[in-house]
C-alpha cells in the first residue's frame, strides 16, 4: 500500500458570499509532483494556504502525514517548505543574511545556507541586497528559503507568475533537479499550462473552487486522443459566432473580440475539406490556419468556455 502524504477531504472555504473552495478532495503520494491548474480566482491560493496552515477550512479536513494543523502545527512546519504569492523580503538584507535568518528558525547553520545558495544559483548574488535583485532572482531566493529545511512537501504558489521565459526556465530547472532526487513532493499552483505539463505528473484543473478534471497529462487528454486543433483567422471582419453555431457537424470556438477561431478535428483528411467548403458557401475566406495537437488550454476552454489566462 502506498501511504498518502497529504489528504484533502471534502474541503470548503468561503469569504463573505464568495465560495473560494467548494468541496474539494484529492491526495498526494510521496514524490509526486502535482499541479493545481486554473485561472485567476479559481481558488488555488486559498486551497494551498489551507494546506500550509495559514487558513483553516470551514468544513472538511486536511491531513498531512496523518497529522492535522490543529494538533501538530510544530511538526508539520518542520516537514513543509513553501513560497507564497508575492512575498517581499527585507530590502536591505542581502541574500545570505535573508537565508541565514530563515535557517535560524529551523535551527540550521551556515553550511545549509551555502548549499541552498548553490542550489538556486544565487552564488554571485550572495551579497546583494534583496532590493537589488531581479524578479527571477527574488523568486529563486523565495524558492531557496522554502528548500532550507529539506522539506518532504513543497508548496509553491504561482512561483513563476510575472517572470520572463528565461527566468521561468531557471526556476523549472531547479524544480526538475529536485524531482530527480525524488525526496520531495510538490504542490504547485499555476495558470501556465506549459508549467503543469513540464513539471508535474498529476494535474488537477480547478475553477470556481471545484475540480473540473484531474489525472496525468495523458489521462486528461486521452478522451481527446488523436484530436487536432485548427486555429484560423478570416479575411472578412466582424464575424459573429452564429456563423459557426448552425451545426454542420463542426465544432468551432469563435472568439468575437479577437476574431479568431479554433476548429476541433478528429479526421483531418475528411473534415478539413468539408470545413473549407462550408466557409466558401458562406462567402468567407481563410486568412491564416495552423494545425496543432490538442493541449490543456484547449481542454480548459472546452470545459469552461474561457482561457486559462485572463489576458489571452
Amino acid at each position, binding site marked *: 500500500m502506498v501511504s498518502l502524504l497529504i489528504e484533502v477531504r471534502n474541503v470548503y472555504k468561503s469569504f463573505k458570499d464568495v465560495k473560494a473552495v467548494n468541496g474539494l478532495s484529492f491526495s498526494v503520494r510521496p514524490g509526486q509532483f502535482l499541479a493545481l491548474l486554473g485561472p485567476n480566482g479559481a481558488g488555488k491560493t486559498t486551497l494551498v494556504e489551507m494546506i500550509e496552515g495559514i487558513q483553516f477550512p470551514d468544513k472538511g479536513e486536511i491531513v498531512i502525514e496523518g497529522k492535522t494543523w490543529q494538533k501538530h502545527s510544530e511538526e508539520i512546519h518542520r516537514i513543509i517548505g513553501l513560497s507564497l504569492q508575492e*512575498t517581499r523580503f527585507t530590502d536591505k538584507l542581502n541574500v545570505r543574511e535573508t537565508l541565514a535568518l530563515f535557517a535560524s528558525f529551523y535551527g*540550521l547553520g551556515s553550511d545549509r545556507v551555502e548549499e541552498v545558495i548553490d542550489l538556486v544559483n544565487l552564488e554571485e548574488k550572495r551579497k546583494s541586497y534583496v532590493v537589488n535583485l531581479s524578479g527571477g532572482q527574488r523568486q529563486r531566493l523565495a524558492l531557496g528559503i522554502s528548500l532550507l529545511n529539506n522539506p518532504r512537501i513543497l508548496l509553491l504558489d504561482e512561483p513563476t507568475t510575472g517572470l520572463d521565459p528565461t527566468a521561468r526556465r531557471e526556476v523549472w530547472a531547479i524544480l526538475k533537479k529536485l524531482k530527480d532526487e525524488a525526496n520531495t513532493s510538490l504542490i504547485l499552483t499555476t495558470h501556465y499550462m506549459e508549467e503543469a505539463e513540464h513539471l508535474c505528473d498529476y494535474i488537477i484543473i480547478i475553477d470556481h473552487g471545484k475540480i473540473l478534471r484531474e489525472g496525468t497529462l495523458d489521462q486528461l487528454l486521452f478522451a481527446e486522443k488523436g484530436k487536432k486543433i485548427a486555429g484560423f483567422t478570416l479575411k472578412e471582419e466582424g464575424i459573429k459566432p452564429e456563423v459557426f453555431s448552425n451545426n454542420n457537424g463542426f465544432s468551432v470556438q469563435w472568439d468575437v473580440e479577437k476574431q479568431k477561431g479554433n476548429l476541433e478535428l478528429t479526421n483531418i483528411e475528411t473534415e478539413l475539406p468539408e470545413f473549407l467548403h462550408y466557409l466558401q458557401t458562406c462567402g468567407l475566406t481563410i486568412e491564416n490556419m495552423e494545425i496543432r495537437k490538442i493541449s490543456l488550454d484547449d481542454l480548459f476552454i472546452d470545459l469552461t468556455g474561457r482561457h486559462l489566462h485572463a489576458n489571452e
Partner: protein
Amino acid sequence: MQMSKGYNQLGQLMISHFKEIIREPGIIFWGIVFPILMSLGLGIAFTQKQEVVRKVAVLETENAVILDSMLTIYMSDTANAEEFMVMTIENKQIGNTSFEFKPMNWNDALIALKRGVVNIIISENDGKIEYRFDPLNPDAQLSYTKLNKYFINGDPVVVENTQNIQPLTLKGTRYIDFLIPGLLAMGIMMSTMWGLSYGMIEKRSKKLLRRMVATPMKKSYFLISIMTVRMTMNFIEAVLLIVFAWLAFDITIQGSIPALLAIFIAGNIGFAGLAFFISCRTAKTEIGNGLINVVVMPMMILSGIFFSYHNFPDSLIPILQKLPLTLVADGMRSIFIEGAGFEQVTTPIAILLFGGTIFFSLGLKFFRWY
C-alpha cells in the same frame, strides 16, 4: 561532513532588525541627525539674545510735527525710502531693541499688519500719538509700551539702567535646558511609534510576517527582538543627543542618572505598548500612517515639548499631565534641571509601565500576523 552549528534564532532576528535600521540612511537621519539639528536650531534661536527688531508702520498724515521731527532725525541714516528707518534703544543687560519705522498710507499699513511685517501702526493726531494694534498680541503690546515710553520721555534713545535687572542665565533656567529633555522624550515617542508600528505594518503588507509564521519561528522571539532592537536604537539616539547638548550648550544632568535611565526605559515600554497596539491589525501603510499621526500629533502640541503646557486652560492641565509624552518629558526635565531623583519620578514610571503593559496585552489579543 560535519554540519555547522545552527544559527541562534533570537540572535539572527536581532541582527536582521538591527541591520534593517542602520542600512536605511533616512532612518539614521530622522532618528539621530534631525533631533540634534532641531536642538541646535532652537537652542541658538532662543539662547543667544540678539538685537530685538520691532517694525512700525507710520501713517503719513499732515501736520504730524512730532513724528516728522522724529523721522527726520533718522532719515539721514537711511536715505532710501524703500527701507525702514532704524532707531536703536540700547540696553546692556537685556539686549538692544531696534525700532524700524516706515511711513506708509493706511492701506499699505493694514496689509503690512496683516502679513505680520509690522505689528503696530502709529499716527499723530492733534499733537497726540495714536497707536493701533491687536491688544491680544503680547509682542504688539510690548512695542506699544516701549514706544509710549519713548514718546513721553522725549528722546531717551539710551535707556538708563535704573532698574536692577538680574538676568537669569544660570544653567537650568535657559530655554535650551527646558528643550533638551523634551526633545529626548519626543525622540522616544517618534522613534518607537514610527519604528515599531510602521515597521510592523510594512512587514505585514509585504506578507513577510505571513511568511515568517509559516516556519517554526517562535513568535515571542520576533516580538522581543524587534522591541529590544528599537529600544537599543532609542538609547543610542538619546545618548548622542545628550552628548551633543553637553558639548554645545553645556547641559548637564543635575539629578539621578539611574532615575533618568528608569524613566527612559519606562517611556520606551509605554510607547512600545502603544505602538504595538495601533499596529496589531492593519496591513495598509496608509492607514498606519494615519493611526500613528493620530497618536503622535496631539501629544507633540499638548505635551509641552517646545513650550510649556501651562499656557493651556487650567482645567485641561491635569489631563495633559497624564499624557505619556508629558509624563516622560516632565520626568526627564525634573531630573535634568530640578535635580530630581527616583522618588519624584516613581508615579510617572508606574503609569507608563502599567499603560504599556495594558496596551501590549490588548495588542497581543487582537494581533494579526497576516
